[in-house]
């Protein structure tokens, strides 16, 4: 009776693949249990089995020691299992309370008793320290608060075991801290939590035990206190993972990208980029560090020709490109790994193969006289899929069906293969697991070593510090400092990013 949830030797097959093979997961009452695995390792499948969305081919599930048959999510709800989905299932136009009671409204003669519902939601919210306004509209509240609404939804339905599916993927660092506090409160109140994640830092911080799965197979369960991030990473990936990316000294040559006094107005007419100057030379990686919303997006879009520059110049290979059409800029040597791969990087309803020629389809050998040559397109796609280790059943599979990491690898393959003189990598590792992150970083450094310029924009300080040769700090649409990653610290960067120039000035004074 020690375990609240036991999933024993679970096997789940899909046509052509075994998503879960002999996985055992045992969760103790009152613990935070991490489920760790790479993108596509089978974590979500296992949780969907527990939540009743899939039926396992083999294995059994026990809740509080009793064997159960979870045929659909309602059964799971009744057993006290609740799921906080990665992509929120909320009605934007409804209030918090309306969303929470949706499907189990307290009603009398067909009328919903809103007063009671609001009271109940408020009480739950206070009990677990969730700080949610029951009467606010979903569309008006932050992503972090929407997630808390999802948590309340499960609590309202009487969940004792909460599954969190990659809960921190969409949150800011501050919100992550709050979420961790909330999880701790939930445990104190007697709940148990399964945390699906591939972020090792979080596991080390909040979890008690961790079960690792790799390529659909259960690797085992370890106590977090007995392990370390390196061991977890190698358990997950199946080989040793290097966190510190190896690279030689940069050997920068001529300037590839030269931005001078750039001004860009945002949709409201306010200057989002306000007199920014920046240089990227061939053979170096320049990292841009900054808090989200300080003009990073506008800067990338202006370089790519998607946003109008009000004044100033952008030169690519010594030729001015500001306000040219995106295609002209692409053809003059720009590669771009966009921030939002679903929105800007891929046509999800195209086969992955057709996505591989999204910028080159009109050129030989992919087309001739306006007629596409599918043979050449798919041949190219096949090569890229192999070279960049994109895991997809075939090159004809829709891009939508691939996991996030593999979609990202496909984009990187496409962009790097065009051999651009300047590669913009915006948040290139968002949502990727350590193995894929390592892969992406290696490719960026490879491009640099081949004498290309790389502009890296990331909100992860680790990444900027680790990969860049120079770091440019952006604050309120300007580059406020350029620092050497070997001589700076996270603290110093943090201060610069927050607009403080004190440390730098002091340093300058002491040098004089």
């Amino acid at each position, binding site marked *: 009776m020690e375990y609240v949830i036991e999933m024993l030797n679970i096997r789940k097959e899909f046509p052509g693949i075994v998503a879960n093979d002999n996985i055992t997961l045992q969760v103790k009452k009152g613990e935070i249990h991490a489920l760790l695995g790479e993108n596509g390792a089978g974590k979500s499948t296992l949780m969907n089995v527990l939540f009743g969305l899939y039926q396992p081919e083999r294995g059994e599930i026990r809740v509080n020691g009793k064997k159960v048959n979870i045929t659909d999510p309602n059964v799971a709800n009744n057993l006290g299992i609740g799921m906080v989905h990665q992509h929120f299932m909320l009605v934007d136009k409804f209030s918090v309370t309306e969303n929470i009671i949706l499907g189990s409204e307290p009603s009398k003669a067909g009328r919903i008793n809103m007063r009671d519902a609001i009271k109940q939601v408020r009480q739950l919210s206070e009990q677990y320290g969730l700080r949610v306004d029951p009467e606010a509209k979903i569309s008006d509240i932050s992503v972090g608060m929407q997630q808390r609404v999802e948590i309340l939804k499960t609590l309202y339905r009487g969940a004792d075991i909460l599954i969190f599916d990659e809960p921190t993927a969409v949150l800011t660092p501050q919100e992550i801290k709050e979420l961790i506090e909330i999880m701790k409160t939930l445990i104190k109140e007697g709940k148990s939590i399964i945390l699906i994640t591939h972020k090792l830092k979080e596991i080390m911080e909040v979890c008690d035990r961790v079960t690792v799965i790799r390529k659909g197979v259960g690797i085992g369960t370890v106590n977090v206190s007995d392990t370390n991030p390196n061991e977890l990473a190698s358990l997950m990936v199946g080989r040793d993972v290097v966190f510190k990316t190896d690279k030689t000294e940069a050997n920068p040559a001529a300037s590839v990208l030269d931005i001078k006094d750039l001004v860009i107005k945002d949709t409201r007419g306010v200057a989002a980029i306000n007199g920014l100057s920046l240089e990227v030379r061939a053979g170096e990686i320049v990292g841009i560090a900054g808090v989200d919303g300080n003009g990073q997006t506008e800067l990338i879009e202006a370089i790519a020709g*998607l946003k109008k520059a009000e004044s100033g110049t952008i030169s690519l290979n010594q030729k001015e490109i500001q306000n040219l059409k995106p295609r002209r800029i692409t053809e003059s040597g720009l590669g771009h790994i966009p921030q939002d791969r679903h929105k800007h990087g891929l*046509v999800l309803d195209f086969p992955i193969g057709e996505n591989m020629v999204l910028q080159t389809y009109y050129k030989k050998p992919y087309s001739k006289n306006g007629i596409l040559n599918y043979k050449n397109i798919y041949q190219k796609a096949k090569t890229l899929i192999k070279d960049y280790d994109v895991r997809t059943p075939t090159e004809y599979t829709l891009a939508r069906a691939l996991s996030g990491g593999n979609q990202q690898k496909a984009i990187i393959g496409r962009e790097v293969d065009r051999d651009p003189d300047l590669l913009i990598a915006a948040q290139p590792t968002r949502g990727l697991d350590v193995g894929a992150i390592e892969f992406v970083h290696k490719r960026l450094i490879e491009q640099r070593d081949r004498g290309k310029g790389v502009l890296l924009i990331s909100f992860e300080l680790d990444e900027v510090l680790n990969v860049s040769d120079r770091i440019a700090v952006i604050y309120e649409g300007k580059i406020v400092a350029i620092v050497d990653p070997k001589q700076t610290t996270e603290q110093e960067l943090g201060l610069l990013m927050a607009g403080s120039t004190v440390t730098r000035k002091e340093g300058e004074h002491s040098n004089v």
Partner: protein
Amino acid sequence: MSKRLINILVPVVSVLLGLIAGTIIMLVSGYNPIEGFSALFYGMFGEVFYTGETIRQVTPYILSGLAVAFAFRTGLFNIGVEGQVLVGWLASVWVGLAFDLPKVIHLPLAIIAAAAAGALWGFIPGFLKARFRVHEVIVSIMMNYIALHVTNNIIRTVLSKNSDRTPDVPKSALLKSPFLEAHTDFSRLHWGFLIALAGAFLMWFILEKTVKGYELRSVGFNHHASEYAGMNVNRNIILSMVISGAFAGVAGSMEGLGTFGYASIKGGFTGIGFDGIAVALLGGNTSVGIILSAILFGGLKVGALNMPLETGIPTELVDIIIALIIFFIASSYIIRWAITRFNKKGVK
């Protein structure tokens, strides 16, 4: 379930449901459903005359279906096919009347004029969408009314002296064929069905085989990514509406140069354009699907004429039965949507 199986199963089930609903209606109103339906099917294909009439009716349906589907495949909803049909009809007749040319030039010219008129009518909502983000549904609906009354006025004042129809188009611009008529017991079958089939091939070819088609589909699925990749999204929106309108315009010429050989004042819409929406959706917006669903729509429309004659079922009831069959077929789009939604969830 495989995708192909679903694609076949869904329309078959929905047609069956429609027939069952029709049966119930006939039983309730005291008519023999077996007699009723056999009259319906006899009226579609029972005699060569009916077959000829059915094919004639199918011809504009294929083209208007293609018009809707082409826009749909590129992410646009062209509700203005009806108006584009009307201007195409008028343009083809106008060119037919205005020139005296040998047939090899005159007939193609009249059809091209129809395509151009439809394209212009499609260009306007396309341009407004691309330039000012005005929704194409609103503009194209309004363009239907403009088309209806403008064409009526031109017929009354320019192409005739206050009459309610134009003179007959000379033979050199007609699709009519004495040969086809003679072999179908003097139905109004004309050569237009070849043009419709060529149109279906053309749509498939443009969308699937050409660079432009790749761009159009890409913009339809995700215009953000297309813009990032350097495609000109606005130009593609306009182009899509123009090509869509051209298909619709040619559909109009099928009536103007084939079925009727003239243009007449209309009290209301022809229905070819609106039915085209259903034809396209039922056909899954693919060329082959559209041909099949156009046959069904055209067949029902022609076959229904025979029901009151043979069985005494009143025309109003026939209309309800036909509407029910189409209703269930139209809901197949919902069924298909539901099935694919369900399947997608299952795969995740």
